[in-house]
């Protein structure tokens, strides 16, 4: 027992040090409820494989869109035959009639591409900006409203409080405004 005493006491002292170190770390801020919710939404978005949506943008004819996630990019097929390629937060028109880049970017945002939304939400979180806006009602039901974009245009993602699945997207810039209803969302097989 006498031989073990230095080790027992030493272990206890190390424990005290650990407690002191823990207390020091407690001086750091804890994540806000809004940030925690945003992380959960990003996690949910990462699980989505494809999204079908019904987009409506300013004076343009409504289009339906299907966004499918692949390993390194996302592909959007619009009902007017145009195709978009999304990599990170960048968008390219890869097929169909030419449209102005601002319109193409807005259509990609409204298509509900999960990785695009997750990347933008992540960037906003890292910039330390507020993500959660005031809740709204959709079809009489309460929903969370998240500000996704870090800088103009304003992009808002509406999600279900119960499942955090995306329900709708709103887009607003100086020249354009629009919204989309996300009709169906397919999750990846885990």
């Amino acid at each position, binding site marked *: 027992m006498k031989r073990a005493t230095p080790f027992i006491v*030493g272990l206890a002292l*190390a424990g005290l*040090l*650990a407690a002191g*170190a823990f207390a020091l*770390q407690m001086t750091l801020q804890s*994540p806000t409820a809004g940030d925690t919710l945003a*992380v959960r939404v*990003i996690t949910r978005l990462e699980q989505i494989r494809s999204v079908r949506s019904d987009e409506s943008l300013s004076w343009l004819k409504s289009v339906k869109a299907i966004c499918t996630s692949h390993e390194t990019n996302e592909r959007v097929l619009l009902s007017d035959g145009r195709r978009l390629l999304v990599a990170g937060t960048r968008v390219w028109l890869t097929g169909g009639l030419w449209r102005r880049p601002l319109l193409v970017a807005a259509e990609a945002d409204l298509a509900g591409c999960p990785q695009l939304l997750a990347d933008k939400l992540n960037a906003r979180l890292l910039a330390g900006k507020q993500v959660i806006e005031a809740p709204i009602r959709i079809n009489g039901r309460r929903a969370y409203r998240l500000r996704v974009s870090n800088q103009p245009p304003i992009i808002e993602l509406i999600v279900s409080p119960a499942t955090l699945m995306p329900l709708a997207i709103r887009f607003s810039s100086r020249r354009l405004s629009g919204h989309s209803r996300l009709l169906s969302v397919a999750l990846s097989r885990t």
Partner: protein
Amino acid sequence: MIERAAARAGPLEFSRRVVRTRQGAVILDGRRRILVWWLVSRVLVLASAAAIQIEGFRKWHPSFLAHPFVVLGMWDGRWYRTIAERGYLLIPARGSDPAFFPLYPVIERVAHTVGLPYVLSGVLVANVGFVIGLLALYELGREFLPEPDARRAVVYLAVFPFGFVFSMAYPEGVVLPLVVFAGLFALRGRWFVCAMCAAAATLARPEAILLVLPLAAVAVRGWPKLDTWSRSRAVAAVLAGPAALISFSAYLGWTLNEPLAWSKAEHAWGRSFALTGVYRAVAQLLTAPKDHNQWIYRDVVFCAGYLLMLLVALRARVPRSWILAGAGMVLLPLTSGTFTSEGRFGLLALPVFWGMAVLGRRVWINRVVLALSPVLLAAAVFTIPQRFP
């Protein structure tokens, strides 16, 4: 007067006093030289950083007066700032801040409360920590090597080309004095202060946990002469690093409900630790040109240099426990699968600089190092906007 002093003290005691006085003068002179080299090297780094910002880089031209030394706050400095401002947040499958240890953001946060902007407070803390670390390293080096070698090692560290990191808003400037003081206080039997330094160092950078090796070696060597209470404190000092690591895990569990958040965040950053990581690190070198990752070769060169200097230090009879700790600091990161940032990781492998100092006994080597290093140090600052250290 001297004859009267000699007559009073006796010839042997008088000789001892003369030797001590001369040694004191040598040490004081050594400290002065170290301070000069620290000042010269930091002026070079800060002036280069200011020049980059005033000249402007890419499309960004932040005003130097409004955002001083923003270059030195780039890369990981941004993550430490985020933690200091908002705490930790684990974002699954994406690079997030639990990969960065908490002590440095805590210190930045405290410095910020006195009104300093985060970048400036980070840079200030790093530079002040660096000069304290250099002076302490001189004391520690003299325990293992002759005074000229110990002084040379510190000067070489001050002007080392990768040493610009010690002026960035990175934790290395804080970890250096903590690591050195842990070793110094262990040798002087001040175990509780040693324990606090070891714990604090690990709370700033995980590789400081390797202090377990030299601290355990000192404790084992001195064990027969220690009383029970001193032995207890020695054990606490050896366990301090692991205890700090456990406290970080406990904190992440408390704040994020994920005690392994650090490991998950590292994984998202592309670093997953496994024995096969060394193979992946070497394989990465073959595909680096195709992946436009030529900067990796910079870290390979530094890694090779560090290992060579560790061998030189081993031959110079620097304690093996310190050599092992240094080797661990250089080699263990390779198990994450990449050589990335090896140049920075090796800065805390103290025996590397003792090995360099031994080589520098040759006058021509010393002159080449002192002529080239400051130039390379200033030039290296200009690489910051292009590549993280």
